[in-house]
């Protein structure tokens, strides 16, 4: 199923944050949302998930997301928020099990338990299963939240900077897992991300936001140019190639922002 966003706009009070956003995410496709702080990446993710209510149209699999019930939408979209607060002190296992909420009535069956164990294993956090989520490291928590999104068994993953709290090894691990889930299950992925090099390496396409509008949209190697980085981020950079992926080395701030 395909995500189609057309002419999406959003304002906080009377301050316009997003306008005229068009984008698509197909099956098996991972799309990165890039842009400086405050450009509306998080807002865009929340608008698609209807945590915020945007103008314009958001359709998934041909259906208007605005007309879906909460549970219906929760069966399709899994959301990995940016904030690393995990809420009350429950065990890692129970926290991940929560992803089954849109699918179960009340009781938890063998298959639900199996999915949780499998997700824990996939993210290499099985050994933490019965630790409290408040007692593990930030990187481990990020993996717990991603595991929860996986057991939600979604058709679209919405990720808000899933690697921001992680060291470089965990960044790569998490990106590889997201990439492989998207490929294997043929689901869509839309990910707000700061790290241009990770985006260039793992995303099929990137959407660059600048002042609430789309400043560039396409495959990373075509979009992530020295010019665009200078315009959007106000930073001079050298863009090379490594392994066929763009390699961005930021140099220094330019202009007055």
């Amino acid at each position: 199923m395909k995500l189609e966003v057309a002419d999406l706009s959003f304002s906080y009070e009377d301050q316009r944050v997003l306008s005229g956003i068009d984008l698509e995410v197909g099956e098996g496709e991972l799309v990165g949302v890039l842009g400086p702080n405050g450009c509306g990446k998080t807002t865009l993710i929340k608008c698609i998930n209807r945590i915020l209510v945007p103008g314009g149209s958001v359709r998934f699999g041909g259906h208007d997301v605005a007309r879906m019930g909460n549970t219906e939408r929760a069966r399709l979209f899994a959301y990995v928020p940016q904030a690393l607060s995990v809420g009350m002190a429950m065990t890692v296992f129970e926290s991940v099990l929560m992803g089954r909420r849109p699918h179960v009535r009340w009781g938890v069956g063998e298959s639900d338990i199996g999915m949780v164990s499998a997700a824990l294993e996939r993210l290499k956090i099985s050994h933490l299963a019965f630790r409290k989520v408040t007692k593990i490291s930030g990187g481990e928590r990020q993996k717990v939240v991603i595991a929860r999104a996986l057991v939600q068994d979604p058709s679209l993953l919405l990720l808000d900077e899933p690697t921001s709290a992680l060291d470089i090894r965990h960044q790569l691990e998490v990106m590889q897992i997201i990439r492989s889930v998207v490929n294997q299950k043929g689901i869509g992925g839309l990910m707000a991300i700061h790290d241009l090099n990770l985006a260039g390496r793992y995303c099929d396409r990137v959407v660059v936001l600048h002042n609430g509008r789309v400043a560039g949209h396409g495959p990373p190697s075509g979009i992530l140019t020295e010019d665009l980085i200078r315009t959007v981020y106000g930073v001079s950079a050298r863009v090379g190639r490594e392994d066929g992926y763009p390699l961005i080395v930021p140099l220094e701030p330019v202009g007055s922002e």
Partner: protein
Amino acid sequence: MEDERERIAGQYLRMQGKRLLFVAVLSFLIFLLAVGSTIIGSAGLTFGEVLSAVLAGIFPGTFSADPLAYTIVWDLRLHRVLFAVVAGFGLAVAGAIMQGVLRNPLASPFTLGIASAATFGAAIAIIFVPAALSGEISLVVSAFSMSALAAIAIYGLSRYRGVSAESMVLAGIILMYLFGAMTSFLQYTGTTEQLQAVVFWMFGSLQNTSWEKLALVTVVVGVATPLLVWRAWDLNALGMGDQVAQSLGVKVEQTRTLHMMVASLITASIICFTGTIGFIGLVSPHITRLAIGGDHRYLVVASGFVGALILLGADSLARTILAPQIIPVGIMTAFIGIPFFLYLFMRRREEYW
């Protein structure tokens, strides 16, 4: 790999088993205590006399009992014992719900103004209703309507700035102080007898229970609890934050409002008969969380059993410790509950909230 998955699944299932065992042990203890509590008292009845009185009440044709024992058991003790069980259960359930919905370990009917509103309602009835008309009814109705008003006010105030957990807690605390101040003012203007009556009401007591009141409270708790347990997933999801809960399909504001209203209704329907019995709604959920963890599918009911045990235990002690004097049960609940809580709190060092 397969082994690891099976180990984890097995451990989770054992955890579930432990939770069921906890509830089973509690219900057994409550049963024992209820039997004991029906037997003890200044009349000096024996187990046999009480048993035949109970049976004679249930199967009037088949069993017969000593008329005095029959009167003591059926007219004085049994409804009080059962009321303690149901009221303790209800107050603890309400506390568990409020703490869960507001993600706040200090939330309870008492920290959120529901109880101080009831006290204010009782004080109005005691002080303003002329003695000729002042019956229990005016007191009960006044206390109940004030707590209902408080619940609606909390909702209204927080609605004004978005029904978040923080704004509800804040609105509740403001109401608590407001009603507290108004009650103090009424006490200041009242006579010594009226003052005494208000203070006695604030202690909380099971002195005035009856079969009719028991029936009413049982219906409220009996209808509300299954509804709350049925929605337990929503409560679990809310524990992870509003946005995550919403992304898991929970209607956040609707759920928070519904749960707060139901918890307030339970509380109001109990304390309008008993006066303010504090502490149970606050501490029972904590004890339960320490013992079996925070999954509300189990926590809500298990907290109820803990609350029932504490209130019944407190009332049994209150009736016997200075017999024939009966101490108001509200004074005893803390004495009973705190050692229990401290034991778990000191023993379990890991974070549980």
